[in-house]
């Protein structure tokens, strides 16, 4: 698939995106709301056959962002999907692990550090925090007090 065909194919899901941006030939930025997140990931992974690189979560104080990074290796194009979770009190999103098993550990890590719930995750257990770390303390959240003794 040529770079133009890739953009054309991405245009078919434009209705579920909130933003579509191509700043460079090999960088495409997509944004979506958390409800459409799973469908778009499914499209990128199964229809487009893009390679899942990693996901990252950011606490933006009013909302959470999850960035899914995909690479389309045929043309070397990197696709970044930015998924907004508007509910800061109770952040929830559909897990992509049933679709992409490689995402299991990064979702567990995001759950540990940012407290994002991943629905339908097959094994949501603690991954990187200490065994005696208290429940409900998420150290990478912006409002977490770093002076606190744990």
């Amino acid at each position: 698939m040529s770079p133009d065909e890739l953009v054309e194919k991405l245009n078919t899901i434009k209705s579920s995106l909130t933003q579509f941006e191509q700043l460079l030939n090999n960088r495409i930025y997509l944004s979506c709301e958390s409800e459409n997140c799973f469908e778009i990931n499914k499209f990128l992974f199964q229809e487009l056959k893009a390679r899942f690189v990693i996901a990252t979560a950011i606490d933006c104080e009013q909302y959470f962002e999850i960035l899914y990074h995909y690479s389309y290796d045929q043309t070397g194009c990197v696709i970044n999907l930015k998924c907004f979770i508007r509910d800061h009190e109770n952040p929830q999103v559909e897990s992509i692990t049933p679709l992409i098993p490689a995402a299991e550990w990064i979702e567990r890590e995001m759950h540990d550090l940012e407290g994002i719930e991943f629905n339908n995750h097959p094994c949501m257990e603690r991954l990187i925090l200490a065994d005696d770390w208290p429940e409900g303390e998420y150290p990478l959240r912006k409002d977490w007090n770093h002076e606190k003794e744990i």
Partner: protein
Amino acid sequence: MNWKIWSLKKSPWVFHVNTGACNNCDIEVVNCLTPKFDVERFGVTLVGSPRHADALLVTGVVTAQAAPRLIQAYQQATKPCVVFSIGACACGTGIFHTGYHVVGPVDKIIKEIDPNAIIAYVPGCPPKPEAMISGIVKTLNAL
């Protein structure tokens, strides 16, 4: 001289404890044992269990998960036991000082259970193998 100290200085067996290091110091510790630096010619040899060790080479800030393990390794080591804090993190937590998971540095954790522990510091990020050899020689001469 105490015969225990005499035998320790003759051939200190070391056990390597990683308490949350980034692996950089660990690579340099292994480097010490390779033919170029070859600390084995001074009788320093790496052993697989703290029960066989006269010295602990501790690398890394002590994380909340690793602290009980470090205490356990120290308690199992034969006394007198020299604790070497290898690297900036082990000596004083370094750049990870405000990290949420940091409970160290090494001397704080060791002194909680044994106030008279012998602790040697080898700073550096990572310390050169020459620095580690120098640290070991200086410590053994000071005993």
